[in-house]
């Protein structure tokens, strides 16, 4: 009886092994036969053959809903599909891209761009100066446009095209950061004119002039397929195809890398650490200008009444231990939104240190008294506010939770609400934010100036407005630096964001991917890693 049982189990096992053996052999034969079929079908074939991945980079990126250089400012993908008049080089200096050359005439405040010859849109239509004029018109004239960057273009007086290859941009006044803002991707006039930029179908099937062209958006499979643009005016990328998987959840990205479903991903510091000392993977650690902070919505009732009590919270948060724990030491405590910028980093703005006694003292000065439950109260109002955090951004959730527990100990009740999508109308008192000014320090203008385009939290401080306004219109770098240092100090005294930390940009790739260049300082969401993607090579 027993013998029979053992025999049957053995037989079962043998069958199983046999099946898996078959499975392996069939799959390997499929992969070997695939290249021949893809060669014969060529790239004209619309039904994509995804079985040959030998020169295809699978990138686990953020989740996407639109691909449009004007609307998306956080994403890698617009940078490689579209190109602008200028682009940033590795050091973050603007250099010519679609423009072949440019001149700037100081007395008339006029930029004159000579465009490249023979540039074609991905659909084959020639690229002309009209497209440039059209794009800039959208940016500074279209009133229905809900984009976060429009404040950067408000110094433009006019954009004209005297001939097909020339664009003349006239400014109202000198703007030190303008050349950098000319890096914005150009939209094709012939495909988007007359449509609502915010909702047009083009946003899901973009056509650009960049290094990669859009092929297909597989919404069911959660991936966007891009192909190298063979007609690109610069160096055509080595990697033939990019599959951009739209995953938002950090742990999913890490699992995908581990299981070989993705070749490159930006991971939070902890997950990135789990790939260190693993010969099959490479850790590529960029520096970023990306900070995390608790942004208070100054338009909500609570902060309208208690705006004086935002800065004091800095005393109650042990930022260094947040960096050490949540960020696994890969970051630095933050005191200024432009602290890592060449123009920022004024040590005099670092006016808060972690000190609970000092916190209690300052709260006392502001008139807060501790209630019976250990939470501060003033004018019959408890020091209780809510912040929203997207549940899939684990690092932000962790930062929020740790800060909430530290604040609670100090007597402040910060309620962390997890949402799957930011809801700006639900009345939350703030959110766990992240921004970056990786190039010109003026990139923070739209965040902090009253009613500027990215000032979501309605921060308003006349002194800050004045300094940032003046700094963008100042030519002398030393004077600018001085102004930004003043801004840092003024902001620190009356902040709208409790700044927590700057993070590193920890990318992890498979061993066979090379060419990533860490000289570039990355932006928010570690954006910009693909700045030299044409030089990358993939060797599986």
């Amino acid at each position, binding site marked *: 009886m027993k013998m029979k049982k053992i025999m049957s189990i053995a037989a079962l096992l043998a069958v199983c092994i046999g099946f898996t053996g078959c499975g392996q052999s069939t799959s390997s034969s499929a992969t070997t036969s695939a290249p021949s079929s893809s060669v014969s079908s060529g790239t004209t074939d619309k039904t994509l053959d995804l079985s040959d991945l030998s020169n295809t980079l699978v990138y686990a990126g953020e989740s996407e809903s639109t691909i449009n250089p004007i609307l998306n400012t956080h994403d890698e993908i617009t940078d490689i599909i579209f190109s602008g008049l200028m682009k940033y080089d590795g050091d973050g200096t603007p250099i010519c891209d679609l423009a072949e050359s440019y001149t700037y005439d100081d007395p008339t405040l006029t930029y004159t761009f000579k465009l490249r010859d023979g540039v074609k849109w991905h659909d084959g239509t020639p690229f002309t100066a009209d497209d440039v004029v059209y794009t800039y018109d959208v940016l500074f004239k279209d009133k229905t446009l809900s984009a976060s960057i429009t404040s950067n273009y408000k110094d433009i007086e006019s954009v004209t095209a005297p001939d097909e290859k020339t664009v003349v941009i006239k400014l109202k006044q000198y703007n030190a950061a303008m050349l950098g803002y000319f890096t914005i991707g150009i939209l094709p006039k012939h495909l988007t004119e007359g449509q609502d930029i915010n909702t047009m179908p083009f946003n899901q099937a973009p056509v650009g002039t960049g290094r990669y062209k859009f092929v297909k958006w597989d919404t069911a499979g959660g991936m966007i397929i891009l192909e190298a643009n063979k007609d690109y005016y610069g160096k055509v990328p080595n990697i033939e195809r990019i599959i951009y998987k739209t995953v938002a959840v950090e742990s999913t990205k890490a699992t995908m890398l581990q299981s070989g479903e993705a070749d490159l991903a930006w991971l939070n510091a902890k997950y990135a650490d*789990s790939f260190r000392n693993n010969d099959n993977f490479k850790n590529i650690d960029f520096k970023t200008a990306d900070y995390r902070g608790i942004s208070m919505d100054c338009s909500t009732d609570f902060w309208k009444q208690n705006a004086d009590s935002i800065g004091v919270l800095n005393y109650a948060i042990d930022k260094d231990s947040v960096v050490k724990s949540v960020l696994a030491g890969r970051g630095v405590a933050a005191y200024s939104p432009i602290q890592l910028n060449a123009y920022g980093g004024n040590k005099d703005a670092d006016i808060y240190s972690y000190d609970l006694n000092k916190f209690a003292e300052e709260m006392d000065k502001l008139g807060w008294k501790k209630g019976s439950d250990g939470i501060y109260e003033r004018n019959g109002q408890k020091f209780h506010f809510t912040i929203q955090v997207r549940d899939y951004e684990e690092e932000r959730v962790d930062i929020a*939770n740790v800060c909430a527990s530290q604040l609670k100990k100090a007597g402040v009740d910060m309620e962390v609400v997890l949402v799957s999508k930011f809801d700006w109308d639900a009345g939350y008192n703030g959110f766990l934010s992240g921004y970056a000014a990786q190039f010109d320090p003026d990139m923070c203008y739209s965040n902090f100036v009253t009613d500027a385009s990215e000032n979501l939290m309605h921060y308003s401080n006349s002194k800050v407005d004045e300094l940032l306004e003046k700094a963008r219109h100042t030519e002398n770098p030393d004077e600018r630096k001085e102004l930004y240092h003043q801004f840092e100090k003024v902001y620190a005294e009356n902040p709208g964001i409790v700044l927590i930390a700057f993070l590193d940009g920890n990318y992890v790739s498979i061993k066979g991917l090379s060419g990533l260049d860490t000289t570039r300082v990355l932006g928010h969401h570690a954006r910009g890693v693909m700045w030299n993607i044409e030089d990358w090579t993939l060797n599986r």
Partner: protein
Amino acid sequence: MAEINSFKLVGTEYKTYVPCVKKIPFCKKLKGKPIISAIILAVIIFGCVFAEKVGNHNPTEFYLQNLNTAPNSEFYFGTDSLGRDIFSMIWYGGRVSIAIGLMSMVIISVIGITYGCISGVSGEKVDAIMMRTAEIGNSIPSILLVILIMSVMGEENIFKISFVIGISGWFALARIVRSEVRQIRNSDYVLSAKTMGVGFFSIMIFHLIPNFVSSIMFVIVSSISSSIAMESTLSFLGLGLPVDVISWGSMLSLANKALLLNTWWVIIIPGLFLMVTLNCITNIGSFFRKETNRKHSNL
């Protein structure tokens, strides 16, 4: 000889005679009963009830100096990636998980028994409609139903989640109750109570329930464990309790992270507690089932 001793002539004193009952030794009484399960379950429940005394750390505190520490003498079950003490979390979390299990069980029992009794004593048509309704409800996968109701309810807390699990889990119980009631509804005592004008709920409580309680005991007990498991599933999927409420399920939802960080204790320990508890409850439940089955075979 022994047999002779079991008989005794008592003569005229037969009315007052009390036969000496042979004392069954305590250990023999326990034979066949799920003692080990009961003891383990008692220990776990005791630990959860006295979580403040048992836990040696604050379960919501982040011990940022002790991240991802393996089990040691200070943190008995180790800490997770943000330095929370697993040992303390287990007891506080168990409190929530078990409370949800019990509350859901009560809801399931109340709805299931009432519905089953009404259906059982009703006429053919009403009975058919009621039972088909319950069967339709039963045929929908309960996880789907729970997620659906949860999304309508909005923000979750312990009571809401128990309520949702309860109202989506009573169908099976109602069917069993109804078939039991069908068998006894025409018994003389039920008829006589009815003719004397006793109300439905009194009949249900005094006549119906005592007669089928033993046969539904198993379902009721196992509904505790299925409710705990359901809560864990929901919290694991991120649909259950908010993050700041610790339960075994929400602890397990950290497992994905822990898997990547190679911190086995974050996954194994809550999982083990959950498994052991569920097993003990099921064991006790199946004891009740065996008991009722034996009674029937006695007939």
